[in-house]
């Protein structure tokens, strides 16, 4: 019995040391953000701030159009998530449940997008957005991200696992395809939709390279590139940099704590389904 206890203690010790390594950067980020610039640069450093000062947070709001940037990030994440999930679920249903000519050919063509690393599309995408006059706009920011081969593939797996009888019964009752999709099938793939919503929202919020390219004016940026310019402009204002980082990561962390089960199940499934 005591051998077992010792074993568990050992497991906890390893897991705890891992936790310290994983969590420490977050703790340090929060602690630094409440210090004065002077205190942050003390050698040796203080661990806890002498006084919890929120100056860094108020400074950041005037240094960059931070409220606007925050808003841009929110709006773009919501637009991308809602439209992408809606379009993907439609296409996934079509590919999984309806027979039409060239279906498999089209599906394979779309799947090929999944195999290609994102940089390949970047130059032409940039030129398309530029030629449409959409640089530095919300439209340019979201447009290529409204369509997803990954999302279509993911939801198709969910639609395919539903029994055929459901649809047949609905057809006999006189439902058309659109009603079947919206009223019967869509509610049944809710777990898949939730996974995709979480995945897409996370992607859109944390997106970096594309927004860095297309939206370059401070009032059109989203958070990722904004942090980069914050770091460039206020090189030694560490509390301010950390305050920016804290504000950038908090919404997703809150979302994660609320939908923890869905986040983790979605990831766990990706290994089993893939």
């Amino acid at each position, binding site marked *: 019995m005591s051998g077992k206890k010792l074993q*568990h203690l050992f*497991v906890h010790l*390893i*897991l705890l040391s*891992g*936790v310290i390594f*994983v*969590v420490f*950067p977050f703790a340090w*980020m929060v602690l*630094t953000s409440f210090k004065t610039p002077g205190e942050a*640069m003390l050698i040796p*450093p203080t661990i806890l701030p002498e006084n919890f000062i929120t100056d860094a947070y108020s400074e950041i709001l005037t240094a960059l159009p931070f409220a606007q940037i925050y808003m841009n990030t929110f709006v773009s994440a919501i637009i991308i998530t809602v439209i992408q999930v809606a*379009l993907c679920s*439609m*296409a996934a249903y*079509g590919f999984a449940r*309806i027979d*039409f000519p060239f279906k498999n050919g089209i599906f394979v063509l*779309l799947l*090929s*997008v999944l195999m290609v*690393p994102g*940089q*390949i*599309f*970047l*130059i*032409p*995408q*940039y030129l398309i957005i530029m030629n449409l006059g959409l640089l530095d706009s919300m439209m340019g920011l979201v447009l290529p991200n409204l*369509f*997803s*081969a990954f999302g279509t593939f993911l939801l198709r797996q969910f639609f395919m696992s539903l029994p055929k009888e459901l649809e047949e019964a609905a057809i006999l009752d006189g439902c*058309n395809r*659109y009603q079947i999709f919206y009223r019967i099938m869509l509610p049944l793939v809710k777990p898949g939709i939730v996974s995709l919503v979480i995945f897409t929202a*996370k992607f859109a*919020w*944390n997106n*970096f*390279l594309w927004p860095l390219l297309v939206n370059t004016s401070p009032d059109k940026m989203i*958070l*990722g*590139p904004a*942090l*980069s310019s914050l*770091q460039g402009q206020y090189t030694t204002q560490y509390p301010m940099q*950390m305050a*920016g*980082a804290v504000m950038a*990561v908090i919404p*997703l*962390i809150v*979302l994660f704590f609320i939908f923890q089960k869905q986040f*983790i199940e979605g*990831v*766990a499934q*990706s*290994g*089993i389904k893939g």
Partner: protein
Amino acid sequence: MADKKAVVANVPKKKATSREKKDWIAGYIFIAPVTIGLIIFYIWPFIQNIWFSFNDVNTFNVATWCGIDNYKRLTGDTEVFNAFKNTLKYVIITTPVGLFFSILLAALMNAKIKGKSIYRTLYFLPSVTMSAAVAMVWKWMYNDQMGIINSLLRALGGEGHNWMTDPKTALYCIMVIGIWGGVGYNMIILLAGIQGISTSYYEAASIDGAGPFAQFFKITIPMLTPTIFFVLITGLIGAFQVFDTVYMMIGAANPAFEKTQTVVMMFYRAAFSYGEKGYAAAISLFIFAVIMIVTVIQLIGQKKWVNYD
């Protein structure tokens, strides 16, 4: 395609065909938005990118045909060569080390211990946070004068080090962040894999007197190989494309720049800082080719070590 006579002779079948056609139209309507969007923003750009790679695209984005000049230049470009070397180093180290820690954590998390869900939550935290923010914090921790890491080292009697500006250490510092960011995510996938292994194997093994270590290496690991393979493949592909952290942490003036520039970083600079979009297109296709080759090697190699039953 359908036999005309058969259709005329068989009236109910004709009705079915008209319903079938209605279904076809519905099908096309369902897939149209995604299909058209992907063609315009991904499939067509893919083709265009190939075409660009055979062109000299100037800063005004006017393309002139130059044959394989971009590829010729690519083979002789030491900057590209170095970027590939750095990226390969990054991939070769972060992927197995990350995998090792993920498997270790997943195995420990499978033990019947208290507080599992708290551990899981905390380990997953880096996977939901923005890499730009994460890079800023690590850069601050690595700071040679005031960074917490050097302060700790000095407090323990050691010496500080200029981690991010020393060409010898900077890339390793970035690797640490990559591993830190990916371990929790992969642990979740592997843990689900471990929990999917039937308990009957373990029961049989413990009857035969196999201890926990023997069980781990003889049952858990072999049964987990399909999941390990999945984590390995996705990890490799992701690691090849590392960009955000490098961009955030290493400026062009950093002495370690040359030793940390990755291929995607090189691509980004060629395309959008130097305005050499044709050359950048060739670089991006080269990245794609390397990833494809590595993936194909993995797919062939898996037959030797991945168990599917």
